[in-house]
């Protein structure tokens, strides 16, 4: 057991890509958690998809021992967090388990939207924040300017030497300022408090499924001691479990005899499903347990929904199984079965954002070798229905355009809105304002700091779920950053737009749009589908319609020639190959009204592109 005064618990927070995981690498290395041989870049990003995309998705906790310049050895619990807004919930959990944070800011990029969002969260937890200006090795680095920016915008001290309370200057890449960082955090971040003799109170910070250990639970002990053989109960979940293993990650998994107050580590207790270990729950002993639970976490709510269907209908069972397994490791998405006239059986799944959606989709296809069709993302609409002959008036939540009720019964519709904060170099401001305006945005604030503008907009979420973020990135060449929070439902004049291909409505392409933009969206969809659907043996009309009214149309001309010349010397093999290729091609398409639509078209049709 470590003396409380020698423990430091901290999260590393930053805007995406500012170098959190790389800094974590250096801290681990400096403290000898891993040898140089065992080290790899962003060693804590251990999922394939994290490695490939170079981003952190899942927060990771590591325990390090650091012998400081004062000669004392400290137990450091470091939590590396993701920078992307979709995974903000990972940050908030980590923050709740710490007393402080290292705020990493890129010395060239300066403060960005997610920097602010994370700082505010950290301040809410009463944290001590140690600013770290990273990437000072870059030619474009301006540590002084960024230090001023941190003081000015974030409101925490950053100028001046780190020993005097200023920011630590680092290059995580070249290993500069690593010891200074460790010293600063040992000196400035307060030690945890807690009572070893009080009833056990431990916060369930995270849980995931491990094929060897079953469900692994990350805990932060507040009071008391947790050890093997202890009978514990989850105060919210109400279940009881026998602890069979206690330990920490260094980052290698290491068993420990116990975890005392102020410590962060893992436990296992023969739990089969992550659902039983809900994050934010309080763990206490069965006998003589705590009376009052800790304040839990805000529940995360999926905000974006889409349909996931196997390309090959025969893969449905495989998809069901794979989604189930994936969900064991990521309780933040939800799913339920869905069936579509043309796509067959699949699932409607809810995600925390578009990156989250993309990642789940990619993991399903890669880790489980599934080919998927993803339908247009949509949000949840609240529809108020008047009474009908057989039914009273009622309110329903619609996750799927396919479930859109009969328009005659709809009295009002509400849709979710968000408050978006966009942070951008001011040369891109004009284009960004236009983008927000086009997406029905209402500007609520605009301030300038230096050469940068911060603009706040209220926007309907359904205008953002699709490609808003992509567009924002492309018009600002990647410089604008974006953060949002939900601000509730508002009434909107929404309609369901159907896309008809060869006179048949394609359920997977229908979407809910605001009446004011319906025609324009319809036209765009038809134009894109014209390019996305290959020519067929007959001409194909493509129409966008609201109810029975066609608001846009295009036609794909018929194919006129498809002959290959010779069939030489009885060589049938080549012709047969062609037939096999055609069959394979068709397997990647979906047929509606005799028209084969390539699976990519379902998403690509919605990409609004340069409007």
């Amino acid at each position, binding site marked *: 057991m470590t003396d409380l005064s020698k423990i430091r618990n901290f999260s590393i927070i930053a805007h995406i890509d500012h170098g959190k995981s790389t800094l974590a690498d250096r801290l681990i290395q400096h403290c000898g958690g891993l040898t140089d041989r065992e080290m790899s870049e962003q060693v804590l990003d251990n999922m394939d998809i994290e490695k490939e995309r170079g981003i952190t998705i899942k927060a990771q906790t590591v325990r390090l021992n650091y012998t400081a310049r004062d000669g004392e050895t400290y137990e450091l619990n470091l939590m590396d967090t993701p920078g992307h807004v979709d995974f903000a919930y990972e940050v908030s959990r980590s923050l709740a388990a710490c007393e402080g944070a290292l705020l990493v800011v890129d010395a060239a990029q300066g403060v960005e939207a997610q920097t602010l969002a994370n700082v505010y969260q950290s301040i809410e937890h009463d944290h001590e924040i140690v600013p770290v200006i990273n990437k000072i090795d870059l030619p474009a680095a301006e540590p002084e300017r960024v230090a001023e920016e941190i003081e000015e915008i974030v409101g925490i001290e950053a100028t001046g030497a780190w020993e005097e309370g200023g920011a630590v200057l680092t290059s995580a890449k070249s290993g500069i300022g690593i010891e200074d960082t460790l010293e600063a955090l040992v000196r400035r971040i307060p030690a945890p408090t807690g009572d070893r003799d009080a009833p056990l109170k431990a916060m369930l910070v995270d849980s995931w499924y491990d094929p060897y250990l079953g469900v692994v639970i990350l805990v932060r002990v507040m009071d008391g001691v947790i050890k093997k053989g202890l009978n514990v109960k989850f105060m919210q979940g109400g279940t009881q479990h026998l602890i069979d293993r206690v330990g920490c990650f260094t980052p290698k998994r290491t068993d420990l005899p116990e975890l005392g107050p102020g410590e962060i580590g893992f436990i296992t207790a023969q739990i089969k499903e992550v659902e039983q270990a809900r994050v934010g729950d309080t763990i206490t002993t069965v006998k003589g347990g705590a009376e009052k639970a800790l304040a839990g976490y805000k529940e995360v709510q999926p905000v974006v929904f889409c349909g996931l269907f196997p390309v090959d209908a025969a893969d449905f069972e495989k998809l069901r199984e794979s989604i189930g397994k994936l969900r064991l490791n990521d309780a933040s998405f939800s799913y339920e079965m869905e069936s579509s006239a043309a796509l067959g059986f699949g699932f409607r799944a809810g995600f925390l954002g578009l990156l989250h959606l993309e990642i789940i989709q990619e993991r399903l296809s890669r880790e489980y070798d599934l080919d998927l069709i993803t339908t247009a993302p949509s949000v949840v609409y609240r529809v108020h229905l008047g009474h009908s002959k057989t039914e009273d008036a009622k309110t329903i939540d619609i996750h799927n355009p396919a479930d859109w009720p009969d328009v005659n019964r709809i009295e009002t519709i509400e849709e979710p809105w968000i408050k978006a904060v966009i942070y951008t170099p001011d040369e891109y401001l004009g284009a960004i304002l236009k983008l927000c305006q086009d997406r029905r945005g209402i500007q609520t604030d605009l301030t300038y700091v230096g050469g940068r503008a911060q603009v706040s907009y209220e926007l309907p979420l359904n205008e953002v779920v699709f490609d808003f973020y992509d567009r924002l990135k492309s018009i600002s060449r990647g410089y604008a950053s974006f953060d949002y929070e939900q601000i509730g439902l508002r009434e909107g004049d929404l309609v369901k737009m159907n896309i008809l291909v060869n006179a048949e409505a394609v359920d997977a392409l229908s979407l809910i749009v605001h009446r004011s933009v319906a025609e324009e969206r319809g036209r765009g969809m038809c134009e894109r589908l014209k390019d996305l659907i290959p020519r067929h043996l007959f001409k194909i009309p493509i129409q966008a319609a609201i109810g029975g009214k066609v608001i846009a149309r295009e036609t794909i001309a018929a*194919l006129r020639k498809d*002959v290959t010349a010779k069939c030489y*010397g009885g060589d049938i093999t080549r012709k047969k190959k062609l037939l096999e290729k055609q069959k394979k091609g068709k397997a990647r398409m979906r047929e509606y009204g005799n028209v084969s639509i390539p699976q990519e078209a379902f998403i690509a049709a919605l990409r609004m592109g340069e409007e």
Partner: protein
Amino acid sequence: MARALYIHWPFCIAKCPYCDFNSHVRKTADTDQWRDALLADMHHEHLQAVSEEPLTSIFFGGGTPSLMPPALVAGLLQEAEHLWGFAHDIEITLEANPSSVEAANFADLAAAGVNRVSLGVQSLHDEALRFLGRLHGADEALQAVAVAQDRFERVSIDLIYARPGQSEADWHAELARALSLGTTHMSLYQLTIEPSTRFATDVRQGVFEPLDDDNAADLFGLTRAMTAAAGLPAYEISNHAAPGQESRHNLTYWRYQDYLGIGPGAHGRRCETATVRHRKPENYLAAVAAQRHGIAEARALDRAEQASEALLMGLRLAEGVDLADMARRFGGNPAALIDQAKAQLYHDLGMVWSHGDRFGVTEQGMPLLEALLGELVASDLVAS
């Protein structure tokens, strides 16, 4: 039942830039060695083919079989007759380049037993012939046609159209002139850019642009109208003949009857087995030396595969296929051979026809044959 024998001669003087046949340029070929190899390969096929029926057709293809010494052709024919016997009306075709050198051999080839030639005229314009990399000129080709008509009972010519920039008027004039030559058979192929040919590289590098599909479709229509009016209607997608003058040998492929194939790269279908010979001449010779035949692969075909092959071939023909007959041959139900919903769709669109058990592609559907096959052939028959 027809019995057909194909003999491949793999050599050419130069490689044409559009050509993806099994053709090779070699300075010399040892005639004795090739005679022995082809005879051994022929004997092997004879041992495999159980029935006593005589041959109904022989086809010398290439490469450029007109470069074969006539004595070699004669020797091979003698042996074939000795092994199987010849039907009284056997068709013996040889592919020839219409050059003056080769025309000089026509009399000897006819004496050896060849009674039909297929001349690779390709175009009646010198400029087009140069573009196609042909070594003969237009006048030379016309003379060769005349010599051939003199020497052989039946003469066919090949032309390649839908060339880059070719207009309807150009092709109209060229085809009219070709029809006026009075051959009773014509193979009219659209220029297609095949992978791993020089033209494929040229197109990739932007040296020229192939004719677009819309124009090519127009030329296809024109071709069919003109040949039909001249009494040489299309009996296969690219082949036109006066009634009774169809290539019996090629009909064997298209009707999916058995054919034996010997020589480098030759394909055969016999007794539910697909055979293919080694392609490269040297490998072929080495294989024959080692195993007394040139087979690289002999593979038994299951019923579904045979049915799909029969459809692929048969639907190229104006006469279409007899589904009931196919079902008898390959088992199963006639309706299971064709995707019925698609058949109905394309029937309504006027692209396919059916009369009783016969089913085929209409005049309107022919230019889209490749795509139609992908739609029509029942997907259960196609390997995935």
